[in-house]
């Protein structure tokens, strides 16, 4: 079962779709999310968020702070700005 990922900033929805793997850096360290992950809410630090799509391609986004929430294979990444 794939992950439903949404990467949103205050002004727009940057990316949304299905993915097989998401990695991001929280205040505690790097974090990877695979399908079936336990519900989690984390504070992100500045750094890269990478989303591995179902076709195997990986997309990288540079975020400046934000939050990551995981529940029922639904991943939302909230950030103030994306480069």
């Amino acid at each position: 079962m794939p992950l439903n990922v949404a990467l949103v900033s205050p002004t727009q929805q940057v990316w949304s779709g299905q993915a097989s793997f998401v990695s991001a850096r929280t205040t505690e360290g790097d974090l990877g999310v695979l399908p079936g992950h336990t519900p989690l809410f984390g504070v992100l630090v500045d750094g890269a968020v990478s989303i591995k799509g179902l076709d195997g391609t990986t997309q990288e986004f540079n975020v400046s702070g934000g939050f990551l929430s995981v529940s029922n294979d639904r991943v939302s990444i909230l950030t103030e700005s994306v480069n």
Partner: protein
Amino acid sequence: MGAQLRIYRRRMRSVKATKKITKAMELISASRIVKAQQRVSASTPYANELTRAVSAVASFSSTDHPLTTTKENPRRAAILIISSDRGMAGAYSTNAIKEGEKLAALLRERGLQVSSFLVGRKAVNYYKFRNREMAGTWTGFSDNPSYENAREVADALLEAFLADSTETNLGVDEIHIIFTQFKSMLTQEATAKRMIPLEVVETSEPVPAGLLPMYEFEPNAEEVLNALLPRYIQARIFNAMLQSAASEHAARRRAMKSATDNAEDLIKSLTRLANAARQAEITQEISEIVGGADALASASAGSE
């Protein structure tokens, strides 16, 4: 050309010039509403996700965060009024300011002091003219606010909130926001809402069980709330600003449309008056000529 006719023509020219301006403003506003609406809807996913997150954290952690708990004896409340920078938008700014006055009166009744934070030149001028104290003012972006603007305002409000209200005259215990809700192209409504302490449950529909799971927090619930709540306030202020901007354009479009219509009516009635004046002039000239010819004819008849 007679004097009367000349005056009518002059007035018609001036009304026509005014009509051109109001028509142009109407068209500009009409095109900007669409853009403003798109910005409102582009900002909704973020606001929704954030609201979801805040509700989840607030309902599943037992931490008492200052932003979510109501103080026992509030002494001072802040109101943030979002108005426009420019006029020509009918009663748009007036409605927001009046809503603010109502809320301030209500708060004073509860025994609270009110400090005002103002966005938009119209509200600032209203307060300045009445020599009222202003806790903070921001101008220059009412028709096209950016997230940075919202952050500035939110930071000032949060700073005031975190200051101790019992010691200084700057600290506040409650924050209310007054903005103009964009309901549709035709309806916009000035609304007052309490922002802090948070009324976290905002959705009208009941939250289905199992929608909000037991979260693990990283690093911990309190840190997460600390980081989350300022963002939540910023997002809400940003959303309020965007809605107000859309409402401002809609109000201006409507005001300019009726101004254009009025100018058209005025031109029509002035044209009628000018035509009547011209006709009267012609009639008078004819009767003068006929009278003159008559007088000549009767004078020459008498001399024979």
